[in-house]
């Protein structure tokens, strides 16, 4: 940062995070200088977080044109068709900077926000997932952040009554001052319950439902989420919202009743930019206007000024558009569920959004301009120099390694060890849908009363994406596809959360564009539509950008669900172990072996081809209907995958014909299958590598370790660091 002006001497628009050119753009739209409340609205709505101004140019690369897509990107959540009138809604969001400033509330309100995106569509939220990044756990502050974020997710998700079905976590130095907290939610609904956000009907009224509006979270979107961080920014705590899961629970039930009884025309949740965003979006997207009276907003503090009311990011609020005839009934539903409600606006022919306070006009702007006229930047991109050095190096692997020794170290790694320390804090069973719980490649949920089931996996691989954003990003899509496939599901739709550094840095912009290309290409290879996404830029602290961290959430769908879906704990003495998919190709760039054993990060991740991806994923989906154990091979390679099955099943393995290096190779698109018999019914490449039996993980010439010892190390990887 080169600006040295003291904040109190900056012009108002700069204090609100707006550039001089953007300010001029507002003047051009209005034909005059904006009023204070108007400036507040534009500053938030045109922030990076709300407007996607640096990324929008590139997001058109994602395709969502499959016939089963009901609602693609742009609405609050993506929606896909599951047949027989059933739909699924999914969405992913980040809450990175708030979680660094205040980990418990930052994470909690991230959960609250993503749930509102789901029930805004008319869907009942049925499950949550998350993807987390922290600095190394040997630093006390990172432990504090990790513990706080997990508690926040648990505290909010458990109390609001939506189960958290899993997620993924990585630890690396560049996240110490910029942790990542991404949350994903899934909802289900019947087709006739679907509600969209565009208002219709001049004369309809806008009712604000839920919590009172207070001073919390003012400028969260523009100040916290759309700028890089510097030392001392923990003091931005007042910009973090505070969550109340009890209020949200009542709001969910009230809204679902409104939808069931067809009482609303349109609805929008209040998230970033609060009332400014919600009112302008429902009016603008319907091609209409709205008169809003701020005096009628129920407030927590009586002396708030119009700009504060418009920008407040107080949680647990929704804006419903209803016909005048239904207004009284909507207010009665709110009363029954014990939530506050106030009619704050009326739909007009527009196109202006006119805001009144104390009987005076404090804002009068074209409603659609707040969203549609936001600046768009095609920022310069340039391949960063670090890749030359990285690609020129080759990870060193000992040909004569002792697999037991390596495994002892790997199983103790917090990104590999047992995650029960986390998942035990989350209610992951509510609603009685959980067929496969956290701790497997994907979680699997049945839809009661049908033979349908949904599988979800969230995946990211920050170090591999750093070493090759395009290949790394394609590979996380394939990994998530294989993760849902081993439960019997077919990859069906994807949402992405693109966490990157400062987009004004050309190297970061290059990483971003390459990553988008990788995700888009891999999704096309599998015919998976991208139904929604989120971009989180400015993950930069003290001038250091995070590792580029795209995260994907894959929804898999199966009907009928396998009667006994594969699990990691179903290996039994006498079963045969198969390796299915690609052969090891010497893929050690960003591998656990290189990171943990060598303490290094270099090389170039191997490429993947579309035909292999399709074939291996299809093979897994098919095998899931008749195989007791299927397990994707990812972090730590074949050895770690085998260890996880052996530990969970409580039985040993005898492996033959796999070299030491091949045990830890992380070549993608392969999985293990464990089953009785001497044939595996698949067309995909496969070979027998051993049998189940004994008390040890016996890798033949490469070494052996007792399952009990491996289990002890693996189970204690997180607890020994956290307790």
């Amino acid at each position, binding site marked *: 940062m080169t600006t040295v002006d003291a904040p109190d001497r900056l012009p108002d628009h700069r204090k609100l995070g707006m550039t001089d050119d953007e300010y001029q753009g507002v003047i051009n739209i209005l034909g005059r200088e904006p009023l204070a409340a108007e400036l507040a609205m534009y500053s938030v709505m045109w922030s990076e977080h709300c407007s996607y101004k640096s990324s929008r140019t590139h997001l058109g690369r994602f395709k969502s044109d499959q016939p089963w897509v009901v609602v693609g990107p742009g609405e609050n959540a993506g929606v896909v068709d599951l047949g027989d009138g059933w739909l699924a809604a999914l969405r992913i969001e980040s809450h990175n900077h708030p979680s660094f400033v205040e980990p418990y509330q930052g994470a909690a309100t991230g959960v609250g926000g993503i749930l509102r995106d789901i029930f805004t569509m008319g869907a009942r939220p049925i499950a949550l997932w998350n993807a987390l990044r922290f600095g190394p756990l040997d630093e006390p502050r990172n432990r504090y952040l990790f513990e706080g974020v997990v508690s926040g997710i*648990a*505290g909010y998700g*458990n*109390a*609001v*009554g939506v189960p958290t079905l899993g997620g993924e976590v990585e630890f690396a130095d560049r996240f110490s001052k910029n942790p990542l907290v991404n949350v994903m939610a899934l909802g289900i609904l019947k087709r006739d319950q679907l509600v969209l956000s565009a208002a219709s009907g001049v004369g309809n009224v806008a009712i604000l439902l839920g919590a009172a509006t207070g001073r919390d979270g003012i400028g969260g979107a523009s100040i916290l989420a759309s700028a890089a961080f510097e030392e001392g920014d923990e003091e931005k705590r007042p910009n973090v919202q505070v969550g*109340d*899961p*009890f*209020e949200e*629970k*009542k709001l969910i039930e009230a809204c679902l009743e409104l939808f069931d009884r067809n009482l609303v025309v349109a609805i929008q949740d209040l998230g970033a930019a609060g009332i400014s965003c919600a009112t302008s979006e429902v009016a603008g997207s319907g091609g209409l206007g709205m008169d809003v009276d701020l005096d009628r907003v129920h407030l927590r503090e009586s002396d708030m000024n119009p700009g504060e009311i418009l920008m407040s990011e107080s949680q647990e609020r929704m804006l419903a558009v209803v016909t005048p005839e239904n207004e009284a009934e909507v207010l009665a539903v709110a009363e029954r*569920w*014990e939530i506050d409600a106030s009619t704050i606006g009326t739909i007009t022919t527009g196109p202006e959004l006119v805001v009144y306070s104390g009987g005076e006009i404090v804002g009068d702007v074209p409603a659609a301009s707040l969203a549609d006229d936001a600046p768009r930047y095609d920022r310069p991109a340039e391949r960063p120099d670090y890749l030359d050095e990285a690609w020129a190096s080759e990870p060193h692997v000992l040909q004569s390694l002792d697999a037991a020794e390596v495994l002892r170290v790997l199983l103790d790694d917090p990104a590999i060890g047992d995650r*029960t320390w986390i*998942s*035990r*804090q*989350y*209610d*992951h*069973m*509510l*609603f*009685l849908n*959980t*067929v496969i*719980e956290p701790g497997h490649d994907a979680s699997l949920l*049945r839809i*009661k009363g049908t033979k349908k089931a949904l599988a979800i996996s969230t995946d990211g691989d920050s170090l591999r994406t750093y070493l090759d954003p395009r290949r790394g990003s394609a590979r996380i899509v394939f990994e998530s596809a294989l993760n849902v496939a081993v439960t019997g599901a077919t990859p069906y739709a994807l949402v992405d959360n693109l966490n990157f550094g400062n987009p004004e840095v050309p190297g970061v912009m290059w990483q971003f564009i390459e990553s988008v290309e990788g995700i888009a290409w891999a999704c096309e290879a599998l015919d998976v539509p991208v139904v929604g996404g989120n971009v989180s830029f400015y993950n930069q602290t003290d001038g250091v950008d995070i590792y580029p961290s795209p995260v994907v959430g894959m929804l898999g769908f199966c009907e009928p669900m396998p009667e006994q879906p594969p699990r990691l704990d179903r290996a039994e003495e006498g079963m045969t172990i198969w390796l299915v998919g690609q052969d090891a190709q010497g893929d050690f760039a960003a591998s656990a072996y290189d990171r943990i054993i060598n303490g290094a990060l270099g090389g170039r991740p191997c490429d993947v081809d579309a035909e292999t991806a399709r074939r291996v994923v299809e093979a897994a989906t098919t095998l899931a209907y008749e195989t007791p154990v299927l397990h994707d091979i990812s972090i730590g390679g074949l050895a770690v995958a085998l260890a996880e099955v052996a530990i969970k099943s409580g039985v040993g393995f005898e492996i033959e014909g796999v070299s030491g290096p091949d045990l830890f190779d992380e070549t993608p698109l392969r999985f293990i299958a464990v089953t009785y018999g001497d044939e595996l019914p698949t067309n995909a490449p496969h070979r027998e590598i051993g049998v189940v039996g004994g008390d040890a993980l016996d890798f033949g010439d490469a070494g052996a370790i007792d399952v009990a010892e491996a289990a002890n190390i693996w189970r204690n990887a997180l607890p020994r660091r956290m*307790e």
Partner: protein
Amino acid sequence: MTIAVVVFPGTNCEHDIVHALELAGADTEMVWHRDTDLRGADGIVLPGGFAHGDYLRTGAIARFSPIMDDVVTLATEGTPTIGICNGFQILCEAGLLPGGLVANRDLKFICEPVHIRVESTDSVLTRAAEVGQVLRIPLNSYEGNYVADNIQRIEAEGDVILRYSGSGGEVDDGTNPNGSTNSIAGITNAARNVAGFMPHPERASEAILGSTDGMVLIESFLASAELARA
């Protein structure tokens, strides 16, 4: 025969317990906390969740909900009444059961299947089970740690019906997930018609969910409601 399932704002296990009760053949009716009449239900369930957000103290506000007058009246008259998890906490706050529940020993929420050993079949919740029987049922709570002033009397009078244990029925510190006094997982009142317990039997009601061990408790409760009605 109808089982009333009481729903407070913040309750979240009502649909799940209804699912399990209906699997066992019961008719159910959800009753909102602001109602004042259980309409002579044959059995009452206070399900799990976070009634009134668990604000102030778990169950402390729920006991003042309007429906609680009729819950206390019917329970006192002998109607089979069970409280699961948050429902157990509410029964304690309402004075229908002794003691109370405080934060888990390690100050963390615990969601995992645990083993519980049946200590007595003299309750509406355990009449169809066998003493010593070990059930595997999920626990899901932050305040699951049972405490009471008069623990000796509770033990002496046989009010403890369920205890956390190992898979073989062994009871010790290592098999106590949350620090609960004497590993107590569930208790009954002197009249034996009110029972409260922390684990969620509805979460162990179908093989596809991993266990059907909860059904013996649900069937005990329904059999008790049938008997009380007769």
